[in-house]
C-alpha cells in the first residue's frame, strides 16, 4: 500500500465517522429537540456531511501523480 493510499484511507475513515455521527445526530435531534431547533440542527449537520463528502471526492479523484 502506498503512502497516498494509506492517507486516503485514514481520511476516508475519519469522514465515515463524521457521516455516521451526523446521520445519527439528525435522527436524535428530530426526536429530542423542538421543531425549529431540530430543523436548524439537521441543516448544519447536513452541511457538515456535504463538506465531508466533498473532501472525499477531492482526495480520491486525483490520479495525476
Amino acid at each position, binding site marked *: 500500500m502506498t503512502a497516498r493510499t494509506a492517507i486516503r484511507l485514514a481520511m476516508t475513515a475519519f469522514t465515515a*465517522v463524521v457521516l455516521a455521527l451526523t446521520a445519527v445526530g439528525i435522527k436524535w*435531534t428530530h426526536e429530542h429537540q423542538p421543531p425549529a431547533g431540530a430543523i436548524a440542527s439537521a441543516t448544519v449537520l447536513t452541511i457538515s456531511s456535504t463538506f465531508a463528502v466533498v473532501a472525499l471526492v*477531492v482526495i480520491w479523484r486525483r490520479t495525476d501523480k
Partner: protein
Amino acid sequence: MAHAAVGTSGSFLERLNSDWHEFAMRTFMVIVLGHWMEHFLQTFQIYVLGWPVPAAKGMLGMVFPSLVTSEVMHYGYALVMLVFLFALRPGFTGKLERRWWTLALAIQFFHHIEHALLQYQAATGHFFFGRPVPTSIAQLWVPRVELHLFYNTIVFVPMIVAMYYHMFPPADEPVRPQCSCAFDTRSAVSPI
C-alpha cells in the same frame, strides 16, 4: 520532485514554514485530533448512549468538567486554532493547498469571533439577545452541541484537503515546497 531549499536560518516564522513546518503540522494535528475526539465522544454520549446533554462532557471533560463548561477554554482553543492556521499558512506554497487552507482560516476566523462573543458575555455577565446564558449569533438558531460539531467539521474538512495537496502536490504545481511535508521530498530533507 526535488526538495526546495530548506534553510536553517531566517526568522521564526520563516523557519516555522520551512524546516519546522512538518513538525509544527504534526503537533497541530495532534491538538486538532485530540479536540475532535472530545467532540466525537460528546456527541456519541448524547446520540448513541442517550446521556443528557449537560452530562455529556467527552473524555477529559468527565475528569475536568471545566474543560467543557469554561468559555475561556473554548475561546483559548479557538484562538490556538486561529494562530496555527495563520502562522502555518505560508508553508502552503501550492495554489490548491493554499486555497483550501485559506478557506479553513476564514471559517475559523468567524468561529473565533463567535467564541469571542461568548467569552465577552461570560466575563461581563452581560448576556446578549435577552438569553439567560452566553449565546453566540448562530446559537440563536442552532443548539450548541450541533453547532460545535458543524464548525469543527467545516474548518477541519478544508484543512484535510489542504494537507492532502500539501503532502501530495499535483504534478503540474509550479511552486516548489519549502518544507519536508510532501512525501516525495522526504529523502532530500536536511535534519533540523
